C-alpha cells in the first residue's frame, strides 16, 4: 500500500488545478492519477481558441490552456502517474489502479479529489432508429480522430445536436474540406454557447435547423443518408415532414454526462439533474474528505469555471487534511424552483468567517429573458436577488451570495427565477 495525503483522480484541467491549489495550501504528498498517456484531458484535442478569457484574461487554445497548468506542475513535487487507470475507490479512501509499468497499485489517501471529467451522450441516448453502419461518431470522438490522430472521419456530414463540440466540429470539418450539410437541433434553441453558433455555423453558412431531428439513419456498411424530420414541442417527430439528406457521416453532439462509475460503485448519491455527486460548497461529497470538481461534478460551459471550482476543492482538501474545517451543526439545503435545472452546491456545510461570498453555479431549463434570480430563506424572506437579461441552458449562470446573509439557524435557502417587473 502506497500512502499519500491527497490523491487526485484525473489529470485534466480540474485535477491539475485542484492539485496545484492543494500544494499551494501546504500539502506535500500529492499524487495525480491519469489514465491517458498525457495530462490535460480533453483540452488536448480542443485545438480551437476561446479558452482562458476569464481565468487568464487572454484567449488561448485548449492545449495552451492545459500547458499553463502542466508547466506549473513540473516545478512542484506533485507526483504524476499517467497511463494509470483507477478501477476502484472505497469510502476508506483506498484506491486500486493499474498501469503497464508498475502493475497493480494499492494506494491509501488522506483525502481524494474526483476529477474524472465527463463523457458524451451517444446515439442511443436520443434513440435514433435505423441502421448501424460505420460513419456514426460522437462529435468528440470525431474530434479526436481529426485533431489527435490526424485522420478525416468523414466527407459529407450531418450533425445532430447543437452542443458546443458539434458546433466546433462543424467548423473544423469544413476547414478540412468536408461538406457539413446541416446541424439539427430538436429544441427551439441552440444548446451551445452563442459565440460558437456565430463563429462556427453562421460564419461558414452552415444551416442550423431548430426543431429538427434525424428520424432514421440509412446505410449498410457506411452511412449513406439520413432522413430528417421536424419535431413538435414534445420532441416527437412530425410525420409527413421527412426529407432525405445524402451523407457519409453523422456526428452526435447531444450532451455530456459526468463520468461517475467510480463514484457510483463507491455508493455516493448522485444528483439526477447534474449526473454528478451531491456536494457542499467546498465540493465535498457525502463522504468526508472525498471531493469532486470539474465536469465529473456537473458539465461546465467554460474551462475557466472548471479551474475556479477545482481550486475551491483543492483548498478544501488541504484544509481537511490539516483538520482546519469548521462544520455547521446543521447543513443548509439549497432548493430550486422548477425552471432551474440544477444548482451546485446542493448544500452548505461549513462556517467560514473569512469568505465573503459563496459561489453558486447553475443552469436553467429553458431560455429566459429579463429575469431576476432571487434567493430566499426557509420563511420565504428574500435575501438577495440578481438581474439578468438573458439566460440559456447552454450557458452556466454564476452567482455570488454573501456569507453574511446566512444565519446560524438557517435550514434551507431557495432559489427561483422570475420575470423582471418593470
Amino acid at each position, binding site marked *: 500500500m502506497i500512502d499519500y495525503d491527497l490523491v487526485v483522480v484525473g489529470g485534466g484541467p480540474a485535477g491539475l488545478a485542484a492539485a496545484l491549489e492543494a500544494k499551494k495550501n501546504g500539502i506535500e504528498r500529492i499524487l495525480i492519477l491519469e489514465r491517458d498517456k498525457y495530462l490535460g484531458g480533453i483540452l488536448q484535442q480542443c485545438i480551437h481558441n476561446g479558452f482562458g478569457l476569464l481565468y487568464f484574461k487572454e484567449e488561448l487554445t485548449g492545449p495552451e490552456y492545459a500547458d499553463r497548468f502542466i508547466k506549473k506542475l513540473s516545478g512542484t513535487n506533485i507526483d504524476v502517474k499517467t*497511463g494509470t487507470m483507477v478501477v476502484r475507490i472505497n469510502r476508506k479512501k483506498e484506491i486500486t489502479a493499474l498501469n503497464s509499468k508498475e502493475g497493480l497499485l494499492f494506494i491509501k489517501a488522506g483525502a481524494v479529489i474526483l476529477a474524472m471529467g465527463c463523457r458524451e451522450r451517444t446515439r442511443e441516448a436520443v434513440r435514433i432508429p435505423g441502421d*448501424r453502419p*460505420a460513419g456514426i461518431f460522437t462529435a468528440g470522438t470525431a474530434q479526436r480522430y481529426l485533431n489527435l490522430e490526424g*485522420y478525416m472521419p468523414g466527407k459529407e456530414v450531418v450533425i445532430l445536436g447543437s452542443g458546443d463540440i458539434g458546433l466546433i466540429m462543424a467548423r473544423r470539418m469544413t476547414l478540412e474540406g468536408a461538406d457539413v450539410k446541416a446541424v439539427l437541433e430538436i429544441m427551439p434553441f441552440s444548446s451551445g454557447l452563442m459565440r460558437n453558433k456565430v463563429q462556427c455555423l453562421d460564419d461558414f453558412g452552415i444551416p442550423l435547423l431548430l426543431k429538427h431531428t434525424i428520424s432514421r439513419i440509412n446505410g449498410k456498411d457506411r452511412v449513406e443518408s439520413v432522413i430528417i424530420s421536424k419535431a413538435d414541442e414534445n420532441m416527437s417527430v412530425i410525420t409527413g415532414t421527412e426529407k432525405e439528406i445524402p451523407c457519409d457521416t453523422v456526428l452526435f453532439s447531444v450532451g455530456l454526462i459526468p463520468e461517475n462509475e467510480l463514484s457510483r460503485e463507491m455508493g455516493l448519491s448522485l444528483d439526477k439533474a447534474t449526473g454528478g455527486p451531491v456536494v457542499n460548497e467546498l465540493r465535498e461529497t457525502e463522504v468526508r474528505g472525498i471531493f469532486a470538481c470539474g465536469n465529473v461534478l456537473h458539465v461546465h460551459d467554460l474551462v475557466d469555471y472548471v479551474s475556479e471550482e477545482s481550486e475551491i476543492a483543492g483548498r478544501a482538501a488541504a484544509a481537511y487534511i490539516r483538520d482546519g474545517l469548521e462544520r455547521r451543526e446543521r447543513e443548509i439545503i439549497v432548493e430550486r424552483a422548477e425552471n432551474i435545472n440544477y444548482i451546485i452546491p446542493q448544500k452548505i456545510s461549513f462556517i467560514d468567517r473569512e469568505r465573503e461570498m459563496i459561489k453558486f453555479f447553475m443552469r436553467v431549463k429553458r431560455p429566459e429573458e429579463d429575469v431576476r434570480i432571487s434567493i430566499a430563506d426557509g420563511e420565504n424572506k428574500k435575501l438577495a436577488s440578481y438581474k439578468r437579461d438573458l439566460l440559456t441552458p447552454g450557458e452556466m449562470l454564476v452567482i455570488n451570495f454573501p456569507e453574511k446573509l446566512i444565519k446560524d439557524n438557517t435550514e434551507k435557502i431557495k432559489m427561483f427565477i422570475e420575470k423582471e417587473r418593470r
Partner: protein
Amino acid sequence: MEADVVIIGGGVVGTAIARELSKYELKIILLEKEEDVAMGSSKANSGIIHAGYNADAGTLRGKLNVRANPLFDKLCSELKVPFKRIGSLLIGFNEDDLKVLKEKKENGEKMGITGMKIVSGEDLFKLEPNLNEKARFALFAPSAGIISSYEFTIALADSAVINGVKIYLDTELIDIETENRRVLGVKTSRGFIKTGIIINAAGLFSDNIAGMAGDNSIEIKAYKGEYHLFDKKWGDYVNHIIFPVPDRKSKGILVTPTVHGNLLIGPNFYAVDDKDDLGVSSAGLEEIYQGAGKLVSGLDRRDVIASYAGLRAKTEGDDFIIGHSDLVKGLINVAGIQSPGFTASPAIAEMVVDLVREYLAREKKQELRKKDYFQSELAQRPVFTEADLDEWDELIKKDAAYGEIICRCEKISKGEIRDAIHGPVPARSLDAVKRRTRAGAGRCQGAFCAPRVLKIIAEELGLKPTEITKKGGNSRILLTETKGLLLQKGEYHDD
C-alpha cells in the same frame, strides 16, 4: 483446392458442425461470406439456452432442444465461454394463462425435462421482486440458461480451427457445381474448391444455396426481432429469464439478464423482405419497451445503451430442415434453423455427423474414422475483470500490455485486445474485437476506446488506420489523412 466436406456458413450451426466433424479424419473447409463468423442470426438473438418445453415432442425443434440443453455446461467450460443456468419463468396473469403453463409443463415432462414447477403468489415475487404486480403464476424451468451467442459461436470456430478446420472468411459461395445430380465442388468469390459433400448451414440464405445445387425445395423468410440492451446498473433487476405466454408465432418479448451483467429486452416479430435489413424502428422499439413493461415494472429507457435487431430464418413448415437433399447427392441441408436453433446447435451438429457418416458409407463405402487426438479445450485467455488482482499484477510484469486499460467502460486491457486480434479466428475490425473482448460494448459504446482499438488493430496487423473497418466490407472508419480531402479538391491550407 480440395476438401472432403465444405460447410457453408459461419453461424452457430456451421461452426458447431465444423467442430464436431473436426473430431474425425476429414479435410474440412468452412466458408463465410462476412469478415467474421457469427455475423448472421447467431450474432443478434436472445442468447437463451431454452429448457425446451415449447416445441412439440414430435418435432426436431423439440427433440434437439431437449437433447442439447444438458450439453452446455461441459461445452462452455471446454470453450471458456460464460454460461449461466439461471432458470426461466413463464409468467401467467390469469386462469387461462395457467392452463397454458400446465400444458407446457406436461409437454416438457413428456420430453424428459425435469425440475419444472408452477409457482404463484408470494413465492413468485420472492423469486422476482420487480415483476409486474399483476403477475399471478409462473412456470419455473431451472434448466434454462443464458449465454453470449456470438462468443459461443466464435469459440466453436476457434476450436474447429485448432483442430484443423480451415475457415475462409470474406469468402462467398457463388455457385455449386454438380454432375448427374451429384455435388462436384463449390465456386467461391476466391476460387473453386473440389468436394463431395456440402453442408448448407447458410441461415437466411440456405434456400439460395440449395437452389445453386438445383434443390429448390426450401424457402426461407426473414422475420425481424428488435432489442434494447440496458446499462449494467440494471444487470440484477431480474434474476431469471422472464417470458410471457407465447403466441403462435414466437416466444414473445422477454426480459433477461445477460451473462455480462446487462439487462436485455425483446424481441418483437415481423416479416421483412430484405435479408440484410438489420435496422431498428421507432415503432418496433416502442413495442418491445411496452411488452417488457407488461412483465416487469419500473424499467427506465434512459439507461438503454444499445438497440439492435436480428433476423430469424423461418420456413413454411416451421420445423428445422436437417437432412440429405432429396434432389442432389452430397448436399446436406441444415436450414430453417430458427429458435431454439442456438440451443439445439450441439445436437444438430451430432445429427449432421451421423448424416455424413451414413453418406460416406452408402455412397463411398468409406468409414468415418475418429482422429487419435481431438483438442477439446480452448486456452483460457486472460480477462482483467474476472482475474485475481495479484495474478493480474504478475501478468503485467510479464507482459506490460495487460496493464494498459483501453476500454474504460468494460475495463479491457490492450493485452486482451491483442489476444483477440491474434486468435485462431482473428479479429480484424472494431466490431470483431468488441465481440471477443467487449471493448466498446459498454455504456459509451466505443466513443472512448474506438480510436484506441483502431490503432491497435492497425499496428498489430501492419495496416494503415484508413484500412480498418467497423465490420468488414466498405465499413471503413477513417476516409483520408488530414488535408487529404483538401488535396483531393486541389487545395491546401496550413493555418
